């Protein structure tokens, strides 16, 4: 097959240089997504009447619209928003440096926040009922019980799902290349433009994504092994089927 193998090798470091940007985009988006999920999840769990339903409606809408549409929407909206924020907290609107990165973070965070809300809610609900009673028995009030016992346990329960969504988010940042954000895919595209070696550049990018995602999954497996031991249910004494 007619592949420019030399270019593939020489381009690898160039594309790799885009990886930190991808990771930064992922981290910021994940941070805001979790923040949103904690707030929304808290509202759902608190069962406050109108707020809970509103949150569910908002999330349902977000989950029903493609990420690309959301990214493009934020991309077109951000000039107006930025202009409107002119002067707010010292921000100077500069039409030559429209904050597309922030727009992408917003779209990604909102999209994934809607999904991660479910993780937060189900993790909190998964904590054994007995833990609440144990907290009461030791004399903690509701707030102390939740912050000291329940949330830490819920957090550990949520780790597998959170890591999964982190990996999804990392892959999702590749879509930000559509909206003028410089991350690894954009870097690959740019590096290939000169000689039209797009396929080679994209293969390089794919390999790096693959390595990173596989690496994260692997680390997650090891981490869960260490941290998760106290979450394992006690082995029930099951009688073997008599043979």
């Amino acid at each position: 097959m007619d592949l420019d193998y030399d270019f593939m090798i020489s381009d690898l470091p160039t594309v790799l240089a885009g990886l930190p940007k991808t990771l930064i985009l992922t981290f910021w988006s994940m941070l805001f997504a979790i923040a949103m999920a904690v707030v929304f999840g808290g509202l759902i769990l608190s069962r406050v009447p109108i707020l809970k339903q509103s949150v569910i409606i908002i999330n349902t809408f977000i989950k029903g619209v493609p990420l690309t549409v959301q990214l493009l929407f934020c991309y077109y909206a951000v000039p107006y928003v930025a202009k409107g924020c002119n002067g707010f907290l010292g921000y100077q609107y500069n039409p030559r440096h429209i904050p597309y990165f922030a727009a992408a973070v917003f779209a990604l965070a909102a999209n994934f926040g809607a999904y991660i809300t479910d993780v937060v809610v189900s993790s909190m609900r998964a904590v054994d009922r007995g833990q609440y009673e144990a907290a009461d028995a030791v004399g903690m009030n509701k707030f102390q019980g939740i912050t000291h016992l329940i949330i830490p346990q819920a957090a550990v329960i949520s780790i597998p799902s959170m890591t999964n969504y982190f990996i999804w988010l990392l892959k999702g940042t590749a879509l930000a290349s559509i909206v003028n954000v410089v991350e690894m895919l954009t870097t690959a595209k740019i590096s290939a433009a000169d000689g039209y070696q797009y396929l080679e550049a994209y293969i390089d990018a794919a390999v790096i994504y693959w390595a990173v995602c596989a690496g994260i999954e692997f680390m997650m497996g090891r981490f869960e092994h260490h941290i998760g031991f106290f979450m394992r249910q006690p082995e029930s004494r099951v009688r073997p089927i008599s043979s």
Partner: protein
Amino acid sequence: MSTQKASTNGIVITLHDIHKTFGEHEILKGISLEVHQGEVLAILGSSGSGKTTLLRCINALEIPASGTVSIDGQKIDYSQKHSRQDVLHLRRKTAMVFQSYNLFRNKTALQNVMEGLHVVQKKSRDEARQEARKALADVGLSEFEDRYPVQLSGGQQQRVSIARALALKPSVILFDEPTSALDPELVSDVNEAITAVAKTGVTMIIVTHEIGFARRVASQVVFVDQGRILERGTPEEVIDHPKEPRVQAFISKLSYK
């Protein structure tokens, strides 16, 4: 499908020197057995003795490491290469009643009984339905033929399971602790159904720990211990007058007439 045709000397099933290993443990250490036409064989033993494994080796749900199994003329020597077709043919001479009934969840009682007749024995839908109806009537569940397993009690499910096995008219019906999973008050219904089946003259092999029931319904009893047959004979011999000390201990611990 051949029904109760036995070989000339009346022996339907022959097991010879069956060995079976799970991982590092040898569960069956050389079992040999003969079952005659129309016999009801009860296999007794404590848990871990290998009795269920033995039963499952007969219809190839477990594959023995070595030894031969012969059912109604169909024979497999597990020490040699055997094909999937051979296993299938052997298995089709048998039917099994499981401890956990294992009825097909997405089918009614009637459909459960019809399934083998229609799909495996290639009978027409109507023929299958007729025979299935008769089998369900034999176990006393005619009014429940349109119920799904989830709508039936454990005892009823087990009786449907018996009907399913009966309808196939196999050379032997295998029962794997048929009442172990049942609430006590449902056990007698199922035992009645099993007794009725025995009266029809079908060859049966029952793994059970209900000694009283085995005493009443079996014509031959075999005691399995640590992968070997420790004692065999009529119910009177093995249950009433056991010779081996281990069998004596077992019977006395569990017997309730």
